[in-house]
């Protein structure tokens, strides 16, 4: 029974873990907005979540890019088995920094909202389990 409850929460757990890891990455990008030669990093959330749920380690399998508009090269770092990639630049700056504050702030707000949504889903599930356990 415990394992059933555990697996009921597995998806939200993984999603929350990835969301918060991504939140940290975006916070790093915002913090380093004025650091010369800093390259903005991000993860592809959808494939990261799929990989983490399937238990696949994609860290050693970087994406093949066929267009400069794709995610940049892999950084060699990984979050929960998914590679962290450099964001592709729209407007490069003279000091080698690739942080676009508008993009980062928008993504940060978006990710925060989705994190809160996940938290609400977990709370809903907890209520469901409690209802099932009630006599």
């Amino acid at each position: 029974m415990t394992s059933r409850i555990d697996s009921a929460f597995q998806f939200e757990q993984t999603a929350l873990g990835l969301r918060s890891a991504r939140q940290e990455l975006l916070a790093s990008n915002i913090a380093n907005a004025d650091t010369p030669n800093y390259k903005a990093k991000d993860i592809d959330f959808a494939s990261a979540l799929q990989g983490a749920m399937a238990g696949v380690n994609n860290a050693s399998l970087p994406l093949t890019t066929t267009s400069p508009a794709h995610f940049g090269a892999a950084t060699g770092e990984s979050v929960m088995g998914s590679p962290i990639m450099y964001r592709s630049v729209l407007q490069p700056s003279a000091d080698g920094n690739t942080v676009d504050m508008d993009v980062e702030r928008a993504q940060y707000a978006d990710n925060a909202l989705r994190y809160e949504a996940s938290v609400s889903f977990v709370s809903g599930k907890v209520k469901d389990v409690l209802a099932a356990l009630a006599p």
Partner: protein
Amino acid sequence: MIIGAFMSLFNIFNISGSAMTAQSQRLNVVASNLANAESATGPDGKPYRAKQVVFSTVPVNAQGGAGVKVSTVVEDASPMKLVYDPQNPLADGKGYVTMPNVNVVEEMVNMISASRSYENNVDVMNTSKTLLLKTLTIGQ
């Protein structure tokens, strides 16, 4: 794994905190430059030279999180301003006084940029605090 989520969000405090420290150091240097924009002589008898901070990245973990620190404070290499003022006791043989190489306009821009970046990091910290508090309500 929820614990893992918690640790990531707590890390944001360190990351944004380091950026706030770095930006306030930058603001400090800007204040010093603006205050000394007309200091034709200092303790060593030479005019003040503008100072600039150099930021560098500090990795906080293997998951890509990175804070900021001021690695060095360098002296501005741009040429000093020469002002023609023969009455000044500091004037050289031709009547020129060497004034600090502080570019006031540049410093004002630097100040605005530093304060905006600081505000950004405050916002980031507030958001992660909200998320942490929200996480604590799971199951209530």
